């Protein structure tokens, strides 16, 4: 990737003001919950790959939770979440008519330029930002193929939350799609030269996709996940090691060049 292209996606505009947003829709897909929020300010400024910090309702929670943008349609923002701890569990129990506070959009975005052919590789909840990306790539005229991996039947039901023209699914328990991981599908897929790879998922998956892309002489991007406190560049809590040194996932990321991450 050129320095200019890197600067463009690293220094994408971000907004930290808080919006009070009404929950307009809640759908459950196995282990995952899709929220639809009325968030015109976030929706107007968002780009695929960016995230929002979400305040967990209730007195017991201090830190906001980082959630990537799953969909953006008009003034609606979609978030896809999985209950991992008490905070995310509370968010999955939100009901239509309740409100939550969002700050964003934050972080760097996936560059879309030059991706006439795009391959989206997601693992588990890491598939979330790839729907918004697929929508924007399709609008831009790209040919989009997605390969998603889930651990089991409950998680794989999340595939029902996605609408991508060509979607391949793997599950580790063999319950849905091909038995195995995304790598098992990548190994049999016919990928045109020049395809841009977009990956988001657990660290071992990012590492495997990075090796695979190197073998295939493909470049691309990875969106990383980290424990965050502020989400807005202040606390240095969410750093990851990269070819450019230790960088903040919230600020320089979450989207990095695939070849610069050190998973």
């Amino acid at each position, binding site marked *: 990737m050129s320095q200019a292209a890197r600067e463009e996606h690293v220094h994408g505009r971000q*907004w930290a003001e808080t919006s009070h947003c009404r929950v307009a829709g809640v759908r459950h897909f196995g282990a995952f919950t899709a929220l639809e929020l009325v968030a015109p300010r976030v929706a107007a400024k968002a780009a695929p790959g960016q995230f929002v910090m979400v305040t967990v309702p209730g007195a017991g929670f201090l830190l906001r939770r980082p959630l990537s943008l799953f969909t953006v349609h008009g003034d609606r923002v979609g978030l896809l979440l999985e209950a991992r701890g008490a905070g995310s569990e509370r968010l999955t129990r939100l009901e239509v008519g309740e409100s939550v506070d969002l700050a964003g959009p934050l972080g760097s975005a996936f560059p879309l330029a030059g991706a006439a052919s795009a391959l989206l590789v997601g693992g588990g909840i890491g598939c979330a930002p790839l729907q918004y990306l697929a929508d924007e790539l399709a609008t831009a005229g790209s040919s989009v193929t997605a390969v998603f991996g889930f651990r089991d039947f409950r998680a794989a039901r999340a595939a029902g939350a996605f609408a991508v023209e060509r979607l391949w699914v793997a599950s580790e328990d063999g319950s849905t799609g091909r038995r195995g991981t995304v790598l098992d599908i990548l190994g049999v897929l016919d990928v045109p030269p020049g395809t841009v790879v977009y990956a988001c998922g657990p660290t071992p998956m990012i590492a495997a996709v990075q090796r695979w892309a190197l073998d295939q002489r493909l470049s691309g991007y990875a969106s990383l996940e*980290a424990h965050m406190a502020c989400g807005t560049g202040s606390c240095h809590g969410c750093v990851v090691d990269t070819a450019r040194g*230790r960088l903040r996932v919230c600020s320089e990321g979450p989207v990095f060049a695939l070849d610069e991450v050190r998973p």
Partner: protein
Amino acid sequence: MSAPPDPTNVRLSVELGPLHLEHPVVNASGTFDLLEHARRYEGDYFADFPYAAYVPKTITADGRTGNPAPRVTETPAGMINAIGLENPGVDAWIAGLPAWAHLRQPVIVSVGGNEPGQYAAVVRAVEAHLAAADPGAVPSIEAYEINVSCPNVVSGLQIGADPAATAAVVGACRAETSRFVLAKLTPNVSDVTAAARAAVQAGADGVSLVNTFKAMVLDRETLRPFLGNRTGGLCGPAIKPIALRMVAEVAQALPGVPLVGMGGIMSGLDALEFIACGATAVAVGAANFTGLEAPARIVAELRAGLAARGLATPSAARGLALDE
């Protein structure tokens, strides 16, 4: 207690030593980055800057990459962090000053190190730059905050846990500057007044307290320490009652020494409690992580809280919780 509860009658400005603060609320070092806020703000963040002074993240003589991840997680009524003083080093920090030289508010430079010479080198470098720089190219650096919660290069223990080591570090910084010097104390001691007294005797003009409480969180699956650094510093509402007790103890032991109180301030009434325990100013830390709007809200709540109690100024509330 005769004034009507009209917030507009409250005058919030305070004098912290030679620093004139438009209100008593500053940020806690390491929890709030001015330029990161400015680049994510719709308007002019410098015009709307909510704090009465800016305390940047702790600077050390040489750059540091900090601790391995994970570095932060939430805990009951608080959070734990182990960042490890990640910073670019004092020379790179100085080179970045022109980008925010137009900040109107005074700046309190947070200084770290692992032995007295490293602390003094930071203060010396900043003073040399201020003496030589075009005044328009540097912010109004009016004070230093000496962060003694760093580990001692020899013992590995926190410098602030040892009054003699604290005095050595503060004394080394004092020798480099005539500006206002605050010692930021660690609460990881059995008697915080001994550390405060040592700092003041070594030349500190005032005391900030408290830094975070050394603590541990486990990964409940593996039962191993969760943080990359094994231990970290606990902050947030969970520590506020202990912090209030410590501020009151120092206020009682060292009357007349200006104090900056902090530890779990989430609201204006929390801030007011620290003032009642003897603080002249207060610092907001973890609350910055709840949203960009937190500082302005806390200042407004402090104003309303003073008015509701018929108190016209923060000084009128100062020390109300202390013994006669």
